[in-house]
């Protein structure tokens, strides 16, 4: 299971942080920030040309691993447990970045900052509830585009959800 997805820039500013682990999610905001800072301090102390893996039990509990990848000014970080494959997670980061690249054609840090909700849309299509849902970036793109189109359309037409039997029973 994937416990967290994080993006932060090389100065340690979080750009996106999403936690899937029940325990981490229930932590107060400050504790989550501590986690992000902790991850960053480990990452920033890593030399060049070493592996992309870390064992990070100290922050995320036993059997936690971390895979990161460094692109330009951004760190992409995945935290997960023993039921995932490290190399595959590395490729998952690749999928995410490729998709973002297609989304914003040549993605950069600013795209991520200013298209926050879109970032999450992309991520939600790839990782769902802590599990890998989709790894085909074309499919993800299709879904995201459909959402954008529909969102644009719904700005003019408001959707009226059908009233359904659940309401009737209530009275």
């Amino acid at each position: 299971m994937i416990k967290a997805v994080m993006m932060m820039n090389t100065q340690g500013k979080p750009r996106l942080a999403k936690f899937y682990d029940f325990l981490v999610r229930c932590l107060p905001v400050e504790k989550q920030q501590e986690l992000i800072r902790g991850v960053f301090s480990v990452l920033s102390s890593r030399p060049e040309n070493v592996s992309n893996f870390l064992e990070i039990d100290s922050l995320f509990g036993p059997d936690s691993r971390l895979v990161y990848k460094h692109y330009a000014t951004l760190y992409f970080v995945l935290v997960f447990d023993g039921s995932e494959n490290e190399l595959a997670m590395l490729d998952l980061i690749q999928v995410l970045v490729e998709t973002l690249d297609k989304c914003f054609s040549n993605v950069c840090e600013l795209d991520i900052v200013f298209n926050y909700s879109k970032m999450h849309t992309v991520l939600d299509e790839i990782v769902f509830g802590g599990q890998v849902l989709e790894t085909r970036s074309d499919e993800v793109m299709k879904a995201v585009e459909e959402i954008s189109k529909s969102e644009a359309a719904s700005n003019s037409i408001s959707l009226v959800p059908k009233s359904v039997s659940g309401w009737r029973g209530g009275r």
Partner: protein
Amino acid sequence: MEQLKTIGRELAMGSQGGFGQSKEFLDLVKSIGEARSKAEEDRIVLSEIDILKRKLLEPDIPKRKMKEYIIRLVYIEMLGHDASFGYIHAVKMTHDDNLLLKRTGYLAVTLFLNEDHDLIILIVNTIQKDLRSDNYLVVCAALNAICRLINEETIPAVLPQVVDLLNHQKEAVRKKAIMALHRFHRKSPSSVSHLISNFRKRLCDNDPGVMGATLCPLFDLITEDVSSYKDLVSSFVSILKQVTERRLPKSYDYHQMPAPFIQIKLLKILALLGCGDKSASEIMSMVLGDLFRKCDSSTNIGNAILYECIRCISCIIPSPKLLEAAADAISKFLKSDSHNLKYMGIDGLGRLIKISPDIAEQHQLAVIDCLEDPDDTLKRKTFELLYKMTKSSNVEVIVDRMTDYMISINDNHYKTEIASRCVELAEQFAPSNQWFIQIMNKVFEHAGDLVNIKVAHNLMRLIAEGFGEDDDDADSKLRLSAVESHLQIMSEPKLPSLFLQVISWVLGEYGTADGKYSASYISGKLCDVADAYSSDETVKGYAVSALMKIYAFEIASGRKVDVLPECQSLIEELLASHSTDLQQRAYELQALLALDARAVESILPLDASCEDIEVDKDLSFLNGYIQQAIESGAQPYISERERSCMLETTDYHSQDHHEVPSHALRFEAYERPKPSSLPTQASTELVPVPEPSYYSEAHQPISTSSVSERESSEIKLRLDGVKQKWGRPSYQSSTSASSTPPQAANGTSSHPDVGVGSSSLKPRSSYESKKPEIDPEKQRLAASLFGGSSTSRSDRKSSSGGHKPAKGTASKPPKENPIPVQPPPDLLDFGEPTATSVTATDPFKELEGLMDSSSQDGGSTDVMGVLYSDAAPVTTTTSVDSLLSELSDSSKGNPGTYQSQTSKGPNSKEALEKDALVRQMGVNPTSQNPTLFKDLLG
């Protein structure tokens, strides 16, 4: 896309407007980006919070503006500041019909709230509505929110809809519904335990993506219980085979590998299934061999699959050929230049070494290289490998390496781990006692505060007991070497507290034992310890006790004791200590010094730390005193257990409470108000009863009913573990209680909650009975939360209405529920979990299918339980015949005008009709079902 892109760029350049982002947001991001220090950033964010707080208070905020505020809130919360003042606006936004706003609302809510947040309850309703939306994007958004927001208590409120969505026409929805169900399973396995068969079913989905998604929950399920999935081995193998043979659509390829993530998940599952299972291992060995041949080791993902194969082989019982292939793959990994692959190689080696221990030898050099590598991750992985391959022949080298590394690192967490590993290895493989004590000293010296206190106690015991051989000479040598090494280390500054405790203890017990060191020398050292670490009370306590032992041994052996001046001053200081423990020890020491040799010897015998001390647990020596006290009029002692028993017999309610977690929320309708007691029947007439009772004949004398209640509550207890249907335990137990043989539900009580409430006239029960009447809002909420199961609600009404005894209800027209009455043995079947396929023969099962709104998917729903709780009393009451006739009447009277169910309103009559109708539907659903499903499935 392009458009979005340009907008992003424009914003970056500082132009205004765009997709909801304003100049202010841009400025915020920019100024935070330029902030030089954390303090400056905080200042900016705090002022932003002020602005947002003000703005959110303004009336009539345009929705577009509101969306932007919420994005800003999300942003500041991501930076670690509290944005809770705006949560409610995000919650409100999820109610919006506009997809963009709704999704923004959901996004914000999922980021803001965790499962236990109070506001979740406000979203559940919206989620329920959205799950039934025609727009599959809305459904997806709701499913996404479910995964992140639904908690154990709200699962039952959305579960039926999620189960329906498993058959949605869009594969994206099916996939997410499976994931949501999986999430429920992780959150609260009992709530979906009856739906597990759905996962198996979805494995055969036409869409490979859905099948792939199903592997996630199956992996978890198989991890929990391997044996019940053994039958799937060949299915998984054939899926894997098809995937590797590129039978999946081309779009699933990733870097020229066919569906690698599905392959990896399958390999993980196969590893679980093949573990220790020869036949399963044989089935999968073929495909594993193929994989080794086919995998492209030039890509990252190809190596990921290779690694997964190695992992799988290390779990199953492999053929020698496979083992060889795995070893080859590992050596390729280790020889690679990539640190990632080396890491995987070391990891694989560590796994394989368990089944073929000699495999490591050919990679010795590679392993040593990894040990010297600057990459910390790799180093640690290698230490893990070394730890796994330690034998008594190599323990010295490995532990030495480990301790050196331990000393060199600062990471306390890992230091702890490696220290405990050193200790473990040393304890297990130590070649000599001296070496062992040396290693322990090293570990304690450098990581003393990090190791478990048990390790220290183990060490002390080990020194005291020796190494088990009956060789006193060796033992005393061991002790002497411990004492010597400790005396040497003691002069080092700043030793960890735990280590000092060990040192003090050893010196106290054995410092003077050999006669090599004089008592005054040792006691001087101990005083130094107490002096140097005067802030550490535990160490001081150990030191004083050690002193006491030294002096005791001296006195016992008849030598003259002269207390050192520094020792004297230490005692005096401690006599006035704030710590009562230290005071006590000091007083004891003082007292001991005044005693004669014989007394001292019996108090502190020499080298007796391992002797058992007999404790009189019954305190029998006090018997005389107690007898005396009782004779002079004292109350006899009642044990705690007896006391609680007494409480229980007086209070049925408390018993009931044990089963119902007090925090549990109720999402089902509150039960009808019931007479709080039979003796106060008059008052029941005052309570408005909007629904007719169906069991006027169920009125029974109080004695019988209370007996039956007792029975049912007992049976409820017994059945607790049998089956968990829907979320809330109390509800489960009610269904299980009522699905017991009829004699349990004898008489009036068909609902245990109610039964208990009316048997004991506690204030709370009357409160309960009033509350639902007072608060229709809640009722409505609860009802709407329960979604499409309007029938279950009216069922509940009827069931609780049913056992309202006596006059208040008896006067109503006896409009009967058309319950298809069945003989009790048949009814018992409904307790069984999940009917996977619906047959036309069993009306109840048809009803099940109906409730799930998809005829193929029949998880047994709570309706069954409720329905049953209705049926049970009917079958047992004396007037079954009359009931039967009435039943058939009413079912004739309402021939399938299903539409009437669509009308709203709290009309009890209508509710009853609806109820009747649905039951009718249960009998012959095929003609009517489509209308219902159209609504639900869109």
